[in-house]
């Protein structure tokens, strides 16, 4: 059993996600009580755009929205390592 990954959001919310999560990072953030921004939830609108301070994510669907350097789209990705995010 792989160790769960730790996700820190806005330096005040800290939660764990399973190493191989079925849920998108956005869903995990919501479950942890983060008031997340979103619209389409399928990677094309970019409303959930989040700054990745540290860590690595993997996309489950290729985003159509422009992902600026240092940003991620949590609605279509999962954590690959511990993460620090600004949302």
């Amino acid at each position, binding site marked *: 059993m792989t160790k769960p990954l730790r996700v820190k959001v806005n330096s005040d919310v800290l939660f764990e996600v399973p190493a191989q999560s079925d849920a998108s990072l956005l869903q995990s953030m919501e479950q942890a009580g983060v008031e997340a921004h979103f619209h389409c939830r399928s990677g*094309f*609108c970019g409303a959930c*755009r989040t700054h990745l301070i540290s860590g690595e994510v993997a996309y489950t669907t290729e985003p*159509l929205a422009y992902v*600026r350097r240092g940003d991620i789209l949590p609605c279509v990705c999962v954590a690959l390592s511990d993460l620090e995010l600004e949302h």
Partner: protein
Amino acid sequence: MKYSTFNQALVNPLIEPMFFGNSVNVARYDQQRHSIFEKLIEKQLSFFWRPEEVDVSRDRVDFHAMSDSEKHIFISNLKYQTLLDSVQGRSPNIAFLPIVSLPELETWIETWSFSETIHSRSYTHILRNLFGDPSEVFDDIMVNDEIKKRATDISKYYDDLIFHTQLWQTQGEGDITIDGETYTVTPRELKKKLFLCMNSVNALEAIRFYVSFACTFAFAEREMMEGNSKIIRLIARDENLHLTSTQHILNLWQYGEDDPEMQEIAEELKDEALAIFTSAVEQEKKWAHYLFKNGSMIGLNEQMLCQYVEYIANLRMAAIGLEPQYDQTSNPLPWMNKYLVSDNVQVAPQEAEISSYLVGQIDSEVSATDFGDYDL
């Protein structure tokens, strides 16, 4: 630089800039300089819908049960959206097609603009159901000062780019005098006009629809005008895609991933780009004031709408590298989101539509997580 509908010069579309390079000749999509536009075309085609698929007949009863102030809100928003889509159904074609240089972007522009014409057609569908003769509503768009003020602001950057492109394509570079007025036409000036125009279109797609969307969905929250709401959800989904395309264009310029001169211009005109955005925000707030001049509606008032405009403006500004300008960082209308989730969009009651559905295609994408449950 005369425009040709089939440029016979041998050009390599993989090294052309998005705009103001050689004009496009062969419409080919097997290779792209910017593959995102090909993907956006596919996505927009998979979203295809027709207003007649949505039954709006129950809305008539709801509409007649509304108070006068609610009728004002509902009809005014439809008028404003009619104006926006009248502009968007033609202007990207007229302004951008004569100067575009990539086949995938050329077709994206046509696909984008075509989808706006579907939106326009849906306003006729909605209004025809509410009124025996919707002429009164359409005719007022041309005489209503509140709408006309917005029309001026929305069309001026397009008109300026179109006019200067026409001068350049018919008379070439230099100072050109028409009816006693002199216009300076240089490639740099044209690119600046393109940059400002793209920012204005981006602001339009980013925030101008949202006051109206919020009112529609506030009615839907009360289980009123649900046919209309279904149509507006389809429109909102399309608009989100269009916005993604203008954000891509602006970011590609800004990051120097396209025309290096456009990167310089993006830096040079950053303040003007910001001003275009903030002035659109102010106009939308004034529009909210106009909507609620005769009274609010249940669940929504002017203040909440203005907060929502600021909230969404912050998100949209960050997306193109502008500093968010407003204090409103949380969503004051959280129920809006459930209408904006693309996979919740439903057309006919028996047909829950999945946005990734493509005619005659299967989902052949396999990711590592699909094998998460297997042990070897």
